[in-house]
């Protein structure tokens, strides 16, 4: 019936299931590696992971990250090692959430959360400073008044979301370098990251106690 087939198709769709998700009322679960707004992570002992190396700023294609490093005060260091991120700003009017900063970060300091529902009434609010980006004392992102967080969004916001271990070698995935992740501890490699997941205790990995980085 050539011409009339289309009419049959459209009519049968009247009784089909609807594919629309009524967004503000119904929210689809987000993908595990969703690229939302950033967080700056801390170690278990409360030290910041950021070392002010500016690799994230260098790799950012949208030029939205501004970092200035500073020397740590030896008596009261902000981060392990010599340097810390003294100024850290991300302009969310420019950020395209490509996650290249996360890939570039040598210490897993910057990662992306799943939060995407944040809007601001002025341009100054669009620039997140360290006060807003650094996780609070239990490892969760700091909720800003204009942000809309949902249950579970603030979980697993850290390096847990990375596709690879910081060194790119899954063997090191759960090896504690300096100290574990604030709030989330240490985790095993993901399934498929390096063959079948295996507990890292069985691996012969040189670990310097107290050292950070490999």
């Amino acid at each position: 019936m050539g011409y009339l087939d289309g009419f049959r198709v459209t009519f049968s769709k009247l009784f089909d299931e609807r594919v629309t998700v009524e967004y503000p009322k119904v929210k689809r679960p987000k993908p595990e590696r969703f690229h939302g707004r950033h967080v700056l992570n801390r170690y278990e002992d409360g030290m910041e992971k950021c070392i002010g190396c500016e690799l994230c700023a260098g790799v950012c294609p949208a030029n939205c990250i501004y970092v200035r490093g500073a020397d740590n005060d030896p008596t009261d260091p902000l981060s392990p090692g010599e340097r810390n991120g003294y100024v850290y700003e991300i302009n969310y009017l420019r950020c395209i959430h490509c996650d290249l900063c996360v890939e570039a970060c040598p210490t897993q300091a910057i990662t992306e959360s799943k939060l995407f529902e944040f809007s601001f009434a002025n341009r100054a609010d669009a620039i997140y400073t360290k006060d807003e980006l650094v996780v609070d004392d239990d490892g969760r992102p700091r909720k800003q008044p204009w942000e809309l967080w949902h249950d579970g969004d603030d979980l697993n916001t850290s390096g847990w979301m990375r596709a690879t271990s910081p060194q790119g070698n899954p063997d090191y995935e759960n090896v504690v370098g300096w100290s574990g992740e604030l709030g989330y501890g240490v985790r095993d490699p993901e399934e498929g990251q390096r063959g079948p997941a295996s507990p890292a205790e069985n691996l012969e990995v040189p670990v310097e106690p107290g050292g950070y980085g490999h």
Partner: protein
Amino acid sequence: MGDPLFVDGVDWGDVGVMGIKVVVAFVLLLVATMLMVWFERKVNADMTNRIGPNVAGPWGLLQTFADGVKFFFKEDLRPANADPLVFRLAPYISAVTAFLSFAVVPIGGAFRDVPGDTGTVSIFGKETYLQVADPPIGILLLLAMSSVAVYGVMLAGWSSGSKYPLLGAVRASAQAISYEAALGMAVVVVVILAGTLSTHGIVAGQSGGLNTWFLVSSGVVPFVVFLIAATAELNRPPFDLVEAEQELVGGFHTEYSSIRFALFFLAEFMNVITMSAIMVTLFLGGPAGPIFFGWTWVWPILWFLAKVVALLFMFVWFRATLPRLRYDQLMNLGWKLLIPVILFWLLFISLKELRATNDWNWFAMGAAVVVTAVVGITLMLTALRAGDRAHQRELEDV
């Protein structure tokens, strides 16, 4: 009634009844248009696995109202190159003609094949038809209004001082002229069968049950031709070349904003309703239908509404299903298919009627029809082939 020009004088009762009818028809049409926009969006969404408007009011019924309110508060822009007077006038031409054609549609009144039923209801002791006016020219008013409506589109496009509206308007007028011929001849078939131009008379001629509906007694073809031509006349998909978004941005109303755009939008959907109502009047027996119990005046209105909604659904169905035609396909369909078919059908129906009234010989009639058909079809095919050859030569020359 039967006295549309009030030759016997007018009293306050007549004026009151007329006033009520005008107001009711106006409000009814406005509300129906509002619901039509909602209906179209909803059904279209259903046919594409979506939900459609569902936030404003129950089931999103007030969506159009919300849109209308928004339109009122938008800035009214006029391009610097636009002709100030015509640019402002055009939307009103569209809207007013859309309102006027509905005046001749009988929306109620019992039409049964029994002596007592004259299709009237009684308001304040006045016997009156349930239609705003029943002029003797009746259905011609529809043709006149749909022709004048083209002026709205044409002037809007021309006065905008911009290329896309102008192209859209040129397309619109060419399309409307092409399809008005087929549309008009489909109407003529019905007029010949009914023997009257008055819409009330046409409906009264279909009161004897299903097989007296002109849909059946005219042999379906005029209805199909009218439906296709009406779709083109209304600039609805698949004939919406007038406002083909991909080519013309918005067609004739590209430069319109705010309430002026709303008027075009209103007119467009109002025309869809009016055209459906006219189709119901011409082919589907108008408000005719069985009357079961209770108030006799309710059932005809319900039947009328049901038929109109069925046709509206059909228009929406077209839109959800059919892709837009190319412009040459549109013209070919109009001139080379619809007009010859309806011309032949008009001839056939006229001869049939003549035979019935003059008691002519069956055999002679049949022979005349066959000979005319053969000659006509041969001539047309020859003409088409000649046209194709000329077109081919043109292509080769280029």
